[in-house]
């Protein structure tokens, strides 16, 4: 199981929870499991999202591995100037 931390405004879409534990080996599997667990998250997951794994931020990176010891945070998709 990996523990996924949600950013504040995702809580409303996840029944008030700010962390969700799911079974996943990759970011893609994690997204799928999160969507099954909390369907309210699906639209956000589909519009694009960043994932911080141990402080490193990944955009659009389905096959990046996640493991039980990883610190995982979902973050909004980022665009710069």
């Amino acid at each position, binding site marked *: 199981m990996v523990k996924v*931390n949600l*950013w*504040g*405004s995702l*809580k*409303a879409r996840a029944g008030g929870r700010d962390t969700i534990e799911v079974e996943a080996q990759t970011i893609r599997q994690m997204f799928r499991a999160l969507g099954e667990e909390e369907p309210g998250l699906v639209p956000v997951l589909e519009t694009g999202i960043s994932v*911080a794994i*141990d*402080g*490193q*931020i*990944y*955009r*659009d*990176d389905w096959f*990046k591995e996640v493991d039980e010891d990883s*610190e995982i*945070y979902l*973050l*909004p998709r*980022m*665009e*710069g*100037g």
Partner: protein
Amino acid sequence: MLDKTAENGEFKYVGTRPQRPDGVDKVTGRARFGADMVMPGMLVGKVLRSPHAHAKIKSIDTSAAEALKGVKAVITAADLTADVPEAEYDTMVNCIAHGKALYDGHGVAAVAATSQAIANKALKLIKVDYEVLPHVTDVEEACKDDAPLLHDNIFTEGLEEEPTTPSNISGRVQFGHGDVEKGFAAADTIVERKFRTEATHQGYIEPHACVGNLSADGTGELWCCTQGHYMVRNSCAAILGIDISRLRVTASEIGGGFGGKTTIFIEPIALALSRKAGRPVKVVMTRDEVFRATGPTSSASMWIKIGAKSDGTITAMEGLLKYQGGAFKGTWVSLGCMTAFACYRADHMKTVGYDVLVNRPRAAAYRAPGAPMAAFAVESVVTELAEKLGIDPLEFRLQNAAKEGDQSSYGPKHRAHGLIETLETAKAHEHYNTPLGPNQGRGIACGFWFNFGGQTSTSLNVGADGTVNISVGTVDVGGSRASMCLMVAEELGVPYEKVRCVVADTSSLGHNDTTDGSRTTFASGMALILSARDAKQKLCARAAKIWEIPEEAVEWVDGHARPAGPNAGEFDPMSLAEIAGKAETTGGPIAGHHEYNARGAGVSFATHMVDTEVDPDTGRVTVLRYTVIQDAGKAVHPAYVEGQFQGGAVQGIGWAINEEYIYGEDGRLQNPGFLDYRIPVASDLPMIDTVIIENPNKGHPYGVRGVGETSIVPPMAAIANSVSAAAGVRMTELPMSPPRVLKAMDDAKA
């Protein structure tokens, strides 16, 4: 990943300051920018823009314009594709209004004619029947229940309960950890304040310009100044309903962007006009159009509250940020919220942001979008709190600075970064320890930016004479081609002068994300290092063939293939030129490539220090001295790193002291020109001192971090802290123009 460092002294070319490869063209006037392109048979395109802040377009009659001699095409919204993907819809509607003009300057129709004079005349012959609607341009006003509504199909996202009525607030976001109420209860001293900032424009000197040439079968080419020609290709293809493979976009030299050229405005218009006229069409914006219809950044209304114990430990930080993004949803308020407290460690943090719609041009990214205004508010309160506690503001920052392993304001734990080093450097800097005169003040502030990676594709070709051509798909906005050449020279072990870099068109390389998020030197640079490693492997393989030994018995050292170890055999090392010269007979051209989605962009921190003097009679602020200290990871071309530091600081000085969008009661922009929208000029400024900190980014082979954006994050706060000290009153609104400073001083006396 990190395999070369300054400490082990391995760098030969990286870290030097050679002449840039595009330099001579740029000092002789030969470099071709957006408006410098001419195509045979080219027409002039012009855009008709709304004079109203908010108006229903009841009808458009283009018949008189079409009948004018010399007019070859007129287009309206009806000429763009009806089934544009949702992701591009707002971009299309921002180029040409669909049913409603949403701001002063919103495009309504466009013409192509044989001359500029005829095109201008034709614009006047287009009859638009407007029904003027009530408008709102202020962020706080737009949040009120009775405010004029921009869109009846936007409902606030991110609320606990689904809203049932549409709103100008398109979204609410929240970040943080802990329980701020608990944190404030533990505080001995609390400071809270409200802040306002006005919208500013990126202010690039080159107006948007392009030449489009699209044939009836949907095959076309586009020349334009942009930060991302792949983005331009994809957006234009979607809006015009053509295959992306049929549209070849070439990025011209770009005359500044700063985020403002990360979207499209005139490009689909030029292509649609060209398709209709059957000839190439050039569209060049006037400066008035640039101010009214492109950029700018958000204006903001903010509230910040920070509490600390009497020993100086911050216990809680809380913020509320409202950013307006113009007439379409999507400000950078999320990034404002995430970055606001990123420099600090506290057990309890909370930021809430609102994304607000008003009748202004759609906000575009501007250098570290969303971060500078939040930093202005937060860093002002941090300094005020330190003063109340009787602690030096720099010591207070050092005491509470976020370190590796601390939980960040945006969620995950911090990785290694150089914030503490920037503060320690500031503390020891001669600037910080120099006495001030009367009416003078010193301010410091810290700033943070994420930096991005993203999709990147590069190519490297070895020439028969041993020179190297490299192709990138990321636009060079500030000298990045020089950095690319340095990194390839370093990796191959060939002189810098033997490596030449071009920005390739969209048909020549795989997709490349836009030059944004300070990603280009990091992501294209790493792709080129990996392209060079790919090429080196092939070069070694050729040498192995020539020597008739196994490939693994050859290694690449200092620009030469040589036998690896005594068992490989006795051969004289072969240079890149020698191997390249035999390429034809050893297997053909030698090249290296790399395509990836770059990861590992390291965050970047800076500390800025500024002295100002306030004229007590007029309120005029003079910047006396300015020092930028920023972590660059590894400075590839230090002169251009310093340039990024200096340029960002001066844009911040403009934002702090002069620049603002001024709207009249009628909702029209009152200062759409450089005379009234005054960006800093040479005589306003001192030299901008810089200190480059090199705390290597472990996510890059040479330790490189992006440097382009962080430098605009601290300036407004640093200047506000300085001016507040000099004027003896806390400044909470930008710009700190003479009337505002004078009023604040008068109010404080009264």
